[in-house]
């Protein structure tokens, strides 16, 4: 019917509100089992097992950090070597210009700096942050997401999404309520 089609295109998805992390975890698992994939679960603190329940077992932050650290370390060492042995050599008693024991300190510090910057910037970039707008913020109840409420979102873009059946499915998970999320 035409009205249902228009309604489906106009909302971002449906969201179920819980007041208990265990219920959210259970609900997320059931939603994943039911075949929904474009789902998200939000909590005011990291709930153990929740990301796995969404089908998101591991992330690439560790790799980014490793690369950042290697980059930082190489930068530190090459900079010192180039400056001390090539560009501005200081002859102190004929000692070797590539004085690598002395270069360890700054190399180490820049490795840490590179890794730390990669950790933060990488984490934010992979998360897509800053993201000042998200349709979930259109739901007034979502204000409590950062306090003591837990939410499960099913996006309208999911192939199994249907206004009616998805709403019924979410209601079967015993939430406080199920709400529309406007675009």
């Amino acid at each position, binding site marked *: 019917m035409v009205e249902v089609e228009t309604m489906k295109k106009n909302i971002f998805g449906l969201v179920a509100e819980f007041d208990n992390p265990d219920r959210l975890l259970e609900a997320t698992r059931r939603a994943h089992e039911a075949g929904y994939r474009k789902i998200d679960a*939000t909590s005011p603190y990291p709930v153990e097992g929740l990301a796995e329940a969404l089908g998101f077992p591991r992330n690439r932050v560790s790799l980014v950090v490793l690369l950042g650290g290697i980059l930082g370390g190489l930068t530190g060492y090459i900079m010192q070597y180039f400056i001390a042995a090539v560009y501005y050599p200081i002859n102190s008693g004929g000692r070797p210009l590539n004085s690598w024991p002395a270069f360890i300190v700054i190399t180490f510090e820049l490795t840490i700096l590179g890794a730390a910057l990669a950790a933060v910037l990488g984490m934010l970039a992979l998360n897509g942050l800053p993201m*000042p707008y998200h349709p979930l913020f259109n739901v007034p109840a979502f204000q409590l997401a950062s306090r003591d409420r837990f939410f499960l979102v099913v996006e309208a873009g999911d192939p199994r999404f249907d206004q009616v059946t998805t709403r019924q499915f979410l209601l079967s998970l015993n939430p406080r309520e199920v709400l529309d999320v406007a675009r």
Partner: protein
Amino acid sequence: MIHQGPPVLAPGHTFATITDKIASIVQTRHTPLGWFAGLAVGATLVGVLLLSVAYLFFKGVGIWGINIPVAWGFAIVNFVWWIGIGHAGTLISAILLLLNQSWRTSINRFAEAMTLFAVMCAGLFPLLHMGRPWFFYWMGPLPNTLGLQPQFRSPLVWDVFAVSTYATVSFLFWYVGLIPDLATLRDRAQGKVGQILYGVFSLGWRGSARHWSRYETAYLLLAGLATPLVLSVHTVVSFDFATSIMPGWHSTIFPPYFVAGAIYSGFAMVLVIAIPLRKYYGLEDFITERHLDNMSKVMLATGLIVAYGYLMEIFFAWYSGNHFERFMISNRIFGPYGYAYWALILFNILIPQALWSKRVRHRVGLVFLISLAVLLGMWLERYVIVITSLHRDFLPSSWGMYSATIWDYATFAGTIGLFVTLMFLFIRFLPMISIAEMRTLLAETQRGKGH
């Protein structure tokens, strides 16, 4: 694990009460009068700092008490003291996280803020103490028309990189921890200014589980990175002394001795901040007797390591048979600066031994006074190390005396004012306890996994 003794989080709290208790300190119409008083004191001292720095830049470092042979005076003493204080914040945040100590949760936010502000105060001194501060950028490897580059084999250049890295990583760790809490404040904000500012700085955080997963990985890795960093930073600072040939400085015990001393003074500062905060803001449920007990124990332990360092210095001097070393030690103890040495022994070693007693550890007022004593003692330690080695070294005809001028004291007091001002601004506008981590702690306690 079953623990006797007071809990880490007082019972009867929910996610909502934790959030409201901490956030309502920030988002309130009624700023306590005491806050204005504290800010006024801090701001006045910042005025003193600005005056001292202006006069310093106008006249030069001669306004300080430095001379030949004592060319390093209060500036380096204060630098080392402030950096040392900063280390406890990183230890609480990073090392206690890696060791799975849940008692870190209610103290790590303001401890990290303390680190950040202490490093800012410390960082002023290398800039101020330069004879030609307008050339400060010569310390960095920047291309320039003179073709000059820094001497990478110098610990003073190592300091530039170590302290800059430490400041940056501390800031990152603190900010990342704040993001979910800023989202909480954004959602609770009533006024437009609050909504916009907290909204901007929370980066649109919405608590998505995938985001939390990456966040936790990044946070844990930052902790793992910050741990060797904090050990290395004070080691590099100790190298300012240890890589020289001065009697009393040229000693391999300096790195662990300085690091232990840093943690010692840092925990003292955390206690000096935590005790009034928990009283005046009613946070006894979150910063419990258990926290004060644990922090006192860490202070006692690191104080004993520092005492061991003092003993070893005396032993090295005697065992080496080197008459310069032996003179240095007897000059420290019995020479013209002996009063400072004995005060040091009193404040750093003798007074804190009271913390062996459980009754003392549980008396908040006594712990506060002992912490103040430790702060003073650690400052005196830096003073004794710097001044006594410099004023009488190898050649008696070069001997001299050092006395600080009013400008030395004014600059130091000014940096204390800067620290106080920044702390007061922090507690007014940002949550001084990590709300998101307290929720995690509550969830773990409810599951019976609490330590």
